[in-house]
């Protein structure tokens, strides 16, 4: 049945403005891994608890280890009880678990995929899932190529008439531009771009989605969202955690490729983009790509002028001594991998001419937090000069995590007969204002993928444009290593980063 017919369900009208998922089978490659246990299955359970899953759904775990359906379900139940946002209801879990099964196969064994195809056909007949298939690449990125190739060879990438076949690709989308292009070619070889959903879970977060509403549904902000009123923007992603057993991956990626290429540039795009023509996926993604294309390239010596890289040394976090990065397990003692990056970016278009975007991301910083801080220009110091009072600039902070919300700093007169001006903060917290739990990013993203809504997923040209920008920085870094700064664990980063923003006569925000 055509999707349009389903959308015209007259009983659905007026009930909920959200994605309506089609009956389908979700196949997770790498089903015994951390992502499946911590994020995907708890997200699916929460969708079931909210009644958001379609009546007919099957979940198939595809992995190499030998185990029965029953053992797989039991493992998932344990994980769901630990990681689910909502408490597990036994009846509901039992019902949900009945839709889960396990398919054992090596990723490079074509026969395993052919057997999967037969099994999926049987399940369609038995459960009414209509031949719709959603494949989720939750395995290690080194397995993507072989999985995609075998999906193509086994014909699983092609849907039966009237049904659909889609793929969700988990980051990293390559490790540089050539590898991203290669991966995108491989995906494109098997799936159309409209069937491809590249997950950047930051985009599934409520506050990230709210940036568009805040900007374009409030005349107050959009009218001032330009170089006339904004002095600069700071985007920060900090975490107290170290490399935490991911040294193998992190040594090769570093903060620039692990965080800046995807999450932080996506946040920058949402902050800087022009109003889209509509709220459909491509209208929004078109505007985001324009921002990436407008980023002033950083190459050669400019990189060392506008980008600071650093690595954490020993220090203390929450009162506990922690080791230096180079002393972490499986890290090269002479590693030059950056665990901190601060950079000054410029979006060369009319709206943002002369407004720097400062980005910083780091591990072993004092606290966890991701935020966008929009610093407005100072008022002319005419009126209050005589009082000797300094006036803080207005700052609009969009907190992405934790404690999602928005705050606005402004100046107010202190009560009393003298004129004293102090900054005050207007604060909006999602948790306390709306009083209901914010869904996990993966819940929204899975639902959207089942519904075919790609708005919150990265498009091929976005990913490649972001890599192009980041690769130029990385290339410059390969020419020398003496610029790598060190910072103590538990500090807010190296002095070089402070100098970077000081050139703009500003300082980093203390979260």
């Amino acid at each position, binding site marked *: *049945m055509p999707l349009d017919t389903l959308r015209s369900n007259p009983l*659905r009208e007026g*009930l909920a403005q959200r994605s309506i998922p089609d009956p389908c089978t979700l196949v997770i490659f790498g089903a015994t891994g951390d992502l499946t246990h911590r994020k995907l299955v708890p997200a699916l359970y929460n969708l079931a608890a909210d009644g958001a899953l*379609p009546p007919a759904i099957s979940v198939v775990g595809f992995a190499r280890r030998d185990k029965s359906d029953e053992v797989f379900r039991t493992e998932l139940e344990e994980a769901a009880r630990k990681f689910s946002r909502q408490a597990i*209801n036994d*009846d509901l879990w039992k*019902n949900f678990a009945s839709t889960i099964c396990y398919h054992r196969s090596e990723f490079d064994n074509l026969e395993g995929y052919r057997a999967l195809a037969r099994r999926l056909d049987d399940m369609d007949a038995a459960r*009414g899932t209509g031949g719709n298939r959603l494949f989720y690449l939750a395995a290690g990125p080194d397995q993507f190529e072989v999985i995609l190739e075998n999906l193509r060879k086994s014909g699983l990438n092609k849907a039966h008439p009237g049904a659909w076949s889609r793929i969700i690709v988990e980051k990293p989308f390559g490790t540089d531009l050539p590898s991203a292009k290669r991966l995108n070619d491989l995906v494109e070889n098997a799936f159309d771009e409209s069937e491809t959903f590249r997950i950047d879970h930051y985009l599934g977060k409520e506050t990230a989605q709210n940036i568009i509403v805040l900007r374009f549904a409030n005349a107050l902000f959009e009218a001032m969202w330009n170089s006339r009123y904004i002095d600069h923007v700071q985007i920060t992603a900090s975490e107290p955690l170290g490399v935490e057993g991911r040294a193998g991956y992190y040594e090769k990626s570093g903060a620039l490729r692990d965080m800046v290429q995807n999450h932080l540039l996506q946040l920058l795009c949402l902050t800087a983009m022009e109003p889209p023509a509509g709220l459909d996926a491509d209208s929004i993604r078109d505007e985001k790509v324009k921002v990436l294309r407008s980023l002033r390239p950083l190459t050669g010596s400019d990189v060392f002028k506008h980008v600071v890289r650093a690595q954490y040394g020993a220090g203390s976090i929450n009162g506990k001594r922690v080791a230096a990065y180079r002393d972490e397990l499986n890290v090269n003692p002479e590693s030059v991998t950056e665990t901190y990056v601060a950079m000054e970016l410029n979006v060369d278009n009319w709206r943002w001419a002369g407004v720097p975007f400062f980005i910083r991301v780091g591990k072993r910083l004092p606290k966890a937090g991701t935020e966008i801080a929009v610093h407005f220009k100072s008022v002319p110091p005419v009126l209050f000069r005589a009082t000797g009072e300094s006036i803080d600039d207005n700052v609009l902070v969009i907190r992405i995590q934790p404690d999602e919300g928005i705050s606005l700093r402004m100046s107010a007169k202190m009560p009393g007969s003298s004129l004293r001006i102090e900054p005050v903060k207007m604060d909006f917290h999602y*948790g306390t204002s709306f*009083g209901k739990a914010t869904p996990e990013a993966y819940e929204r993203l899975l639902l959207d993928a089942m519904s075919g809504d790609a708005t919150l997923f990265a498009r091929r040209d976005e990913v490649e444009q972001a890599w192009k920008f980041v690769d130029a920085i990385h290339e410059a870094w390969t020419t020398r290593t003496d610029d790598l700064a060190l910072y103590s664990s538990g500090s807010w980063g190296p002095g070089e980063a402070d100098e970077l923003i000081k050139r703009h006569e500003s300082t980093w925000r203390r979260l």
Partner: protein
Amino acid sequence: METALTSHPFIELGIPVEIGRIDKELGKLWESSDDTKTRASLINLVVYTEDEAAMSADNEVLAAVAGRHPCRAILILGNPSAPGSEAKAWISAHCHLFGRDTLQTCSEQITFRLEGDAANALPNIVFSHLDSDLPLCLWWKADFPEPLDEKLWSWVDRLIFDSTSWQNPHHQFSIIRHISSSGKSGAVLCDLNWTRLHAWRFALASQFDNASAFPHLSSVESLSLRCAPCCRISALLLAGWLAGRLKWRLDIENETFISKSGQAIPFQIEEVLGPNLSLISIKCSEAQFQLELAEGSDFFQSTIQTPGIPEIRQILPAPRGRLEDTLLAELSRAGRHAFYTESLEVILPLLSR
């Protein structure tokens, strides 16, 4: 997770205050607080009741609601038939801890007791104690009076009521139709009976999102519902919604619906003790769809039987039974209730029987 705290030293309705000093006393309430509290408010929630025995329960509901949906709460006990004229007021605060933080978010509550002539001052009492710029939600827990005081109703943004509590629903519905059409843009009608039906409507709609199920909507042959004796109006509203959405009309003589193609669709409502609404079964020419809610359960048992496909059974979230959950669900919504009046118009002739 949130933890309700008892706001010392207020008991029940709080601290008695002179009506003219309410704002000052509320200010003192915050100044005297010895720990960090944030006053938060999203709406003005005014509750009007004439049932003194229910005041304590209403107070508890407001405290629970404030914990999830910060508001300026105004609870009014009116007794217009009392002799003389007397007005009394109390203030209190509801504070809650949010998350793992020690952030306490507090909502203010003002409670009024209006007797005799003072009850006629209701609009003034309400208007002079609202948080400015925030929407006004009025939960009217009594029969609507006649004649209506336009001064009050024209400023209400959301008018909350519960049609299951009405003795004469036909008459009461005719009054609220008038209220909704008065004022600047007309108050949004929020019938808690309709709010409770949201989970039913959502689950029913989900059954027909299925590609194999959708075509059967055009071949419905009969409709069965089961409800508690108190709640026939709930079953009627659900049937009215289905009829309105599928463009059926009511044949009042025979008490059946007539489909677009002229096919008679008999419906029956069985009244048994148990949940307000416990079953809806839609029989089509070649398929059957059923939602059943067992006593005390948080989930519907959904069953879909269509030809050529094995029976699909699913568990779906059902409405929560507690009043505060229903009220919170209502307050969390935005915009108008699509199809409430459409459903009501369908069943209105049946309400006068």
